[in-house]
């Protein structure tokens, strides 16, 4: 047959195709890999939104990031698990500096923060990337991508502060993805905001090492930390996270005087073990965190965890009861519109002191930080 290629050529051609496709396939696969990934060829590192990272050291491989318990050890050209820190020629850079992909104004209650400047607005920003891999991530389109892959705005720290003032926001919230991943951006913006009298709020998974945490905490006013479960094995499976680090984060934030609230998402069959919830609440009380509001929120099927039912309201109520019994003083139920556990009840006299409907305050009976009925001091930052 005249038009046919010789057999050898065909084989070579096939091998070439297979090798090409296989290589590209593996390269793309690594996008989902828990291990440090190659950032591709970056002979020229001309990324405008970069800043040399804090907290890293040289290692035999290249550089070792010390910011979170993943401790990524990165060779030249590699990217950390959080997808926004890259090693270029032995220097670790954050590539999420001044390029947020989500910028919104939210009611502060949406974070949720119920005992911190109620009825104010938070200027909320996020850059792409996260150091965890939660199966139920609501914002996976930000958290599981690198800033190179998202559609970003340009907003350097001073711009953020300026816009927050223009929008008449009392605070800036570092949120949606994982603000401790875009650490340098969070830190510098928080410093600039402090100077202008704007408060700083961290909405985080709490998976950060102690030294960087302490440095960031020095400019934070409030934090809401996700405590995903009180079971280390489930933490790993659900999020590839570390329970002990998160618990340490809670202790540190409390000890340095950052206003702290905790969110616990009750996921059917994953994090709804009531005995574990009881142990967690006892631990919180034992560590002096009884005054930190605890939000039990309702799970809705999402992302990869989409073959489960939503959390029954009864489970949330049971968890709340357990927390009260353990001595936690302010326990809320989230994601259940109109639930009475959206309100704040005085821990001393039991009266309703803040009536909430969704993100709005219907009535507030706290005067100068004290219960209007019994004068007991109500923990929180009220003005």
């Amino acid at each position, binding site marked *: *047959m*005249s*038009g*046919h290629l010789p*057999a050898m050529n*065909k084989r070579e051609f*096939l091998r070439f*195709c*297979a090798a090409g*496709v*296989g290589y590209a*396939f593996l390269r*793309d*696969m690594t*996008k*989902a*890999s828990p291990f440090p990934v190659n950032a591709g060829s970056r002979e020229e590192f001309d990324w405008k939104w970069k800043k040399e990272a804090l907290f890293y050291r040289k290692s035999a491989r290249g550089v070792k990031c010390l910011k979170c318990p993943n401790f990524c050890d990165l060779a030249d050209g590699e990217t950390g698990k959080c997808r926004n820190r890259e090693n270029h020629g032995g220097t670790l850079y954050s590539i999420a500096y001044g390029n947020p*992909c*989500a910028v*919104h*104004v*939210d*009611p502060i209650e949406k974070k949720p923060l119920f005992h911190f400047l109620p009825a104010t607005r938070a200027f909320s920003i*996020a850059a792409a990337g996260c150091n965890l891999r939660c*199966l139920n991530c*609501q*914002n*996976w*389109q*930000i958290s*599981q*991508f690198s800033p190179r892959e*998202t*559609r970003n705005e340009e907003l350097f720290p001073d711009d953020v502060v300026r816009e927050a003032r223009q929008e008449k926001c009392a605070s800036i919230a570092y949120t*949606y993805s994982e603000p401790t991943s875009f650490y340098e951006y969070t830190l510098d913006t928080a410093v600039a905001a402090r100077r202008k009298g704007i408060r700083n709020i961290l909405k985080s998974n709490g998976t950060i090492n102690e030294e960087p945490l302490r440095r960031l905490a020095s400019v934070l006013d409030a934090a809401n930390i996700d405590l995903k479960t009180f079971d280390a094995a489930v933490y790993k*499976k659900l999020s590839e996270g570390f329970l002990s680090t998160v618990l340490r984060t809670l202790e540190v934030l409390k000890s340095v005087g950052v206003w702290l609230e905790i969110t616990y998402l009750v996921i*059917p*069959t994953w994090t709804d073990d009531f005995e574990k919830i009881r142990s967690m609440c006892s631990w919180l009380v034992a560590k002096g965190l009884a005054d930190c509001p605890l939000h039990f929120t309702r799970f*809705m*099927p*999402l*992302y*990869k*965890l*989409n*073959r*489960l*039912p*939503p959390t*029954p*309201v*009864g*489970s949330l109520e049971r968890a709340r009861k357990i927390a009260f019994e353990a001595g936690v003083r302010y326990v809320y139920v989230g994601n259940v*519109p*109109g639930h009475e556990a959206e309100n704040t009840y005085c821990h001393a006299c039991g009266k309703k002191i803040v009536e*909430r*409907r*969704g*993100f709005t305050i*219907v009535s507030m009976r706290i005067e100068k930080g004290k219960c209007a009925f019994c004068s007991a001091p109500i923990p929180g930052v009220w003005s």
Partner: protein
Amino acid sequence: MQPPREGERSGGRGSTALVLLGFSTLVTQTVFLREIPAVYTSNELTIGCTLAVWMTLTGAGSALERKAHPRNPHRCIPFLLLALGVLPPLLLAVLFTTRNVIAAPGTSPGLLTILLTAGVLLAPFCLLAGYLFPLLASFLNESKRTSGAGRAYAWESAGGAAGVAIFTVFLAGVISGYQILLLTGCVLLTVSVFLYPRDVVPLWARVIAIIAGTAFLFVAFCIDIDRFLRRPLFPGQELVLVRDTPYGVLASTIFSGQRALFVDGLLYAVPDDPAGDEETVHYALAQVRRPREVLVVGSNLPGVVREAVKHGVRRVDCVEINPAIPPLTVVDGKGVFSQGMHIHIADPRRFVRENAHRYDAVLVNLPEPTTAALNRMFTREFFSDIHGRLRDGGVLSVPVLDGVDYLGEDTRAYVSSVAAALRASFRNVLIVPGNRIFLIASDAELHYEIPALLEEAGVETVFVNRAYFDPALARERADDIASSLRREEPPNADFRPTAYYRTLRAWMSSIGLPLWAPLVVFLPLPAILFRRNAVPRICMGAAGFAGAVFQVTVILTFQAILGSLHRDLGVLFAAFMVGLAVGAALRTSVARKTGPRLAATFATGAVFVAAAPWVFEAIRSGTQPAVSFALILMLSVVMGVIVARIFALIVREFSGAGETEDVSGIYAADLAGAATGAFIGTVYIVPLLGMMSACYVTSGVLAAAGVLALACGLRGTGTRG
């Protein structure tokens, strides 16, 4: 491989065995193509991948027969047929019970997990089925005018058509997939032992087979086997009811007192979801002054009706395609029926087109269009029909997404294509970012002051109100979304389902893979095609490929126009199989040269496929569903005839002639081409190019294969391995 000539009787047995093989293979394939995606992740991509794995393994089994031809084939065939009957129910049980070992409970795993699982799970059955085909074909006597392999193809196809017709047409929705497999197993066990004489199948084997067949029947009809086996799929929940419906597997569960309804493992409705019901109803009805009549497409009926009557709505028509769903979601039926609810069990597309009633609002209450079946509720054509059913100032509400703080590239493109489809018929489209993101469309002006409008109308709510919905912040978010939408995205259309393509891509990116990654599965296929007899194999591969792409195009066109694919998929498959059987049974003259005849057949196919778009248009503009259905079946049958003719012509040339005989290789090439075509057609060609262009591509493939056959001839040209 020399076909043993044992006379007419062994030929008769061979054909019966081939019918059994086709029967069992097609029934098992239909069941697994539904169950594997339902157990892991249900969309066309996983279905396409499962189909590709199926065909590849069957092709491999067929190729294996060449390497490992048994010394005493007539002795081992009955036992292989027995295994064919026993394996499917066992494998389905393994699929269910290993679900939570392979993937974490409650999760949808990635494509690689699904591919690997499908590969391992299906291997025993598919390899066996593939192995049996050339083996059984070798028992069919050559005749002057037809090849044994050609007739084998005909018998197998006939068996397949019969199996699919019986189980997926007549028994669909009556018995479950599991019961179907047990019943098929029982048929195989009993028939295959009596088909062969005593000296081949000894008494003890017959007794065991009969006992096993009876046990299958007992398990199928005396035990609630489905509920028992499917428990691991609903961790922690009490599985109250499972129903295998033509539209997916419904499961009703109770978890800590909360009821939930799942379709193919995905949450479909929670009876108690006030926030969701309020969003579905009030964003839209707030825009209408005194709405009186509303149409709801989809489910969670009682809650939606309860919210609608707060506006003084007197009549709520609910149209749902699956008759099994309303009884499960309407728990307190009496109350809502007295409030003016009417349930219509019908295809929403047809209901809207044929019902002359006019409404103040149409509320789409469906999940995102992650499948072709859902996509048709989000197209320009459907929105245009709805527009015609709305009164002046009427609104249409379409939920597009769960509320998120950022939209990725494919999600933006998907929302853009749905928004463009709405804009084609409506003057205004409002983006409402709530817990879910809604697109509200109307010719009248639309407003963000939804809480004020509801207050004015005296509607009390727990979620859609000032407490949660700040019009200024909502407008800001909506503007953000609007500015990120892609103007260049074409509107989602019946024959150009871009929304479905984009949601598939978004799903792939959620599991960290690009959309083309699954193509890796097809890498081994060229090796099968090229190693020996390259030209005939390429020709057969091209025919298999074209047949599958065309079949996928016909199926998706059918779905876009008639919408009853789940119910009628079996009929479409059966039509194709009937075409294959007829084409393979037609006589082939040996006097004339095969090359030109083959080229002519390819050319006929190319012309036929290129003309199909006219038929599609005729079907779309036709008003008689029965005529449309008949035309679509005709397309399937004709394509089946063409593919089978090509197969018959090629094997006629290559069977029973010593070293050149290559039935198994050609059969494998057919399967490989079909696998590639089914997958690439579903995932890339049709969604990306649309149905019309898919036909032209297919026509091009057939034409190219025809040119190849003509230019090179079939013999003495390929490389011999």
